[in-house]
């Protein structure tokens, strides 16, 4: 039985990216590449930092039983299972303003899986990655 008394020693959760999310990440990269070379670098660096950090933070949180993520209410209700949201901001806030508000903000949706059957989650599965501007804007979508 591994010693889970110290968060610092926790192995990070494994990271899996579902094909849907992979395509969204690569599409975003291609879009940003055409838009602004700095933007695609910022996006890549933000994902490179945020996703492994999420895996480490969750491992510690579950080991210590603290600061557990709160499921995304709407998605979890629709699919009757916990779905989580991670907000990832690429670049700085000045860039966000230049981009029209939230332009560098991405929303990563994931769930947690127990792959070794010990009744403890050990894997982050990235389900989808959405740009902040994809949120509903029209009256019809708000309804």
């Amino acid at each position, binding site marked *: 039985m591994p010693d889970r008394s110290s968060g610092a020693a926790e192995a990070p959760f494994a990271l899996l990216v579902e094909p849907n999310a992979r395509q969204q990440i690569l599409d975003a990269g291609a879009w940003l590449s055409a838009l602004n070379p700095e933007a695609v670098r910022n996006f890549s660096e933000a994902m*490179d930092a945020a996703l492994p950090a999420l895996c480490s933070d969750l491992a510690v949180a579950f080991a210590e039983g603290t600061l557990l993520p709160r499921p995304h209410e709407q998605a979890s209700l629709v699919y009757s299972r916990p779905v989580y949201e991670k907000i990832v901001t690429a670049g700085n806030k000045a860039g966000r303003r230049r981009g029209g508000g939230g332009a560098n903000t991405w929303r990563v949706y994931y769930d947690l899986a127990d792959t070794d059957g010990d009744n403890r989650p050990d894997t982050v599965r990235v389900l989808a990655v959405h740009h902040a501007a994809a949120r509903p804007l029209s009256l019809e979508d708000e309804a």
Partner: protein
Amino acid sequence: MTITLDLPEDLAAALSDVPEADRNRYAVALMRAGWWQSEDDGAEEEEGQTPLSQAELDSIGRGLAEADAGKGLPGESVLAELRQIVSATRRRVEA
């Protein structure tokens, strides 16, 4: 629900000439812009509360179906693919 917007007189006059549906859309866009601006003013977004469109929910559903089917790819390989796009972009810019 009633929301009162305090608009400059010239803007209010201009809006009075457009159809009501367009005015409503403008109001939604204005509130959204104000919300974004409030984010830039330092307020942190709250994870887990973002309203999702049907398209976003469908996208999450596709991801869940793939996860259930065991189709997940190692995260590092996907991040490496993204880094390749960055490298290609850099080469394109430098060429």
